[in-house]
């Protein structure tokens, strides 16, 4: 599946628009009657992939095929008024116990509390109160249902999940939701009747994946008199065969003997088809065979997972060269620049300083 950066951003924006934190309005709830503490609740975890979000076909394609495991953990009891929460189990232990008092109605406050709950979860690994797998149910919706939940506050934890070809990872922010809930609690207006079967939406973030390309140069023979020699390659990536170039970089190999030298380009967006062209064949060497080849870029995650069709170690293209009869020496270097995160670049000098 080919996904452009703009599309990925579109995923996140679209999803952010259709989702809200269920707890945001909870504190505004003024229930006319109390919660039936003996009634079990259910939670439908849903991803809306029709209507608004369905405008993005790639997103729809991914979620039509994905299975997203979701677990819920009961972090607090709720009293009959639905207003007061008391941490439960491992979430009530020691200095890290969750504190609901003083939590206002802002998303940031609830998100911070959810992160605290997630930290406790990771540290103490309590048993999940329920699990489901969100899958496409047709009609532009993917969802999973968890039943048998007692009233309380729950931490909803969807697992990070890759799409079919591992070119995109969908990550989720764990968040808190109250059961039962009400229209008023969810939307800030409307009925405050308790709803024991609640539906919430996932909040995925599309994380683009990267892969690597190995370029192997097989030097068939080597002219020792001329010394070491180099070969340069231009790597251009496209999302579709006729699409624009969305990735372009160069790299070189340097040889001091006949035989193979392999260089690896990493951080190439997964899902691209790259065209590799030998654009420099040494000062006195010539290509033996074609000077251009293509390869698919599989994400590092896909290589690690060993999914079908993915070459072990990632994609590799190979070129061969031989001495061409010239008397010119010389070689080259690949200068690698890394972002310093502040708009500048850090250069890794591949040469020794000149000494005059």
């Amino acid at each position: 599946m080919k996904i452009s950066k703009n599309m990925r951003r579109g995923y996140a924006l679209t999803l952010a628009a259709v989702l809200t934190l269920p707890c945001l309005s909870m504190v505004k709830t003024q229930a006319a009657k109390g919660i039936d503490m003996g009634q079990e609740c259910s939670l439908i975890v849903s991803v809306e992939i029709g209507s608004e979000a369905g405008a993005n076909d790639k997103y729809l394609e991914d979620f039509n095929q994905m299975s997203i495991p979701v677990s819920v953990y009961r972090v607090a009891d709720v009293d009959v008024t639905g207003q007061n929460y008391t941490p439960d189990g491992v979430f009530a232990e020691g200095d890290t116990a969750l504190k609901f008092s003083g939590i206002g109605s802002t998303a940031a406050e609830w998100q911070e509390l959810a992160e605290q709950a997630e930290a406790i979860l990771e540290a103490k690994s309590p048993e999940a109160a329920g699990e489901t797998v969100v899958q496409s149910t047709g009609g532009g919706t993917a969802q999973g249902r968890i039943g048998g939940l007692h009233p309380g506050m729950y931490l909803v934890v969807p697992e990070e999940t890759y799409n079919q070809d591992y070119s995109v990872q969908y990550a989720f922010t764990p968040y808190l939701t109250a059961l039962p809930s009400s229209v008023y609690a969810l939307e800030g207006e409307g009925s405050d009747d308790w709803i024991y079967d609640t539906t919430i939406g996932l909040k995925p973030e599309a994380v683009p994946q990267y892969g690597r390309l190995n370029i192997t140069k097989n030097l068939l023979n080597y002219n020792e008199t001329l010394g070491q020699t180099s070969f340069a390659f231009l790597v251009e990536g496209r999302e579709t065969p006729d699409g624009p170039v969305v990735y372009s970089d160069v790299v070189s190999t340097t040889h001091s003997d006949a035989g193979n030298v392999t260089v690896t380009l990493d951080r190439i967006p997964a899902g691209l088809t790259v065209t590799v062209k030998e654009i420099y064949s040494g000062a006195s060497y010539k290509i033996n065979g074609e000077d251009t080849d293509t390869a698919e870029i599989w994400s590092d995650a896909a290589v690690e997972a060993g999914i079908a069709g993915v070459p072990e170690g990632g994609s590799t293209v190979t070129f061969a060269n031989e001495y061409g009869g010239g008397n010119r020496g010389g070689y080259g270097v690949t200068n690698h620049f890394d972002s310093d995160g502040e708009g500048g670049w850090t250069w890794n000098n591949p040469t020794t300083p000149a000494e005059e």
Partner: protein
Amino acid sequence: MKYIEKYGKVIAMSAAALGMTAALTIESSLAYFTTYVSAGGSQVVNLGAQTTIHEDVSNMTKHIQVANISQINDCFVRVKVFYGGDLSIGYPDSPDTPSNPDWYLDGTTDENGFRYVYYRPILPASPDPDRPSLTTPLDVKINVPDGFDRDNFNVVVIQECTPVVYDESGNATADWTTVYSEYEEFENHSGGRGEEADD
């Protein structure tokens, strides 16, 4: 150097050709006898010119120098810079003209859009290997466009050298195109093909 043993006859014949040729080089003829690559026709074989590349970077400008590490061969030098399509290069004072007049562009662009920059002076041999002769710096500015959203990129710099040859008038010239026809014999008899090559 088993190649020398294998091609002793070829080298000897080529040495005879060397004696008959009108175009002579100076000290570099010594290099001829140390190479396993044969000469064709009446050409003089000039091999052994070797150079190394040295770089520094400041303000995204590369300062490139080339050293001649050959103890016997004077040479001419040229440099080419390769980069990805999102980038471009220029020179500190001009997009198309190196600031240092020792370096010049020859005006031609290869099929991939890259150009050689030539070093005008002869880069003399370095009798003292600890003090190799150096070109003056070639400053190449790397232009990273606004909105460039990668977190890394490469720039490849290659340098080439060719031995100085003298024309019939005694003028020093650079020959960047010579190909010796009998090298094929070397290839065919070397027995060294890729991974099967002898170490």
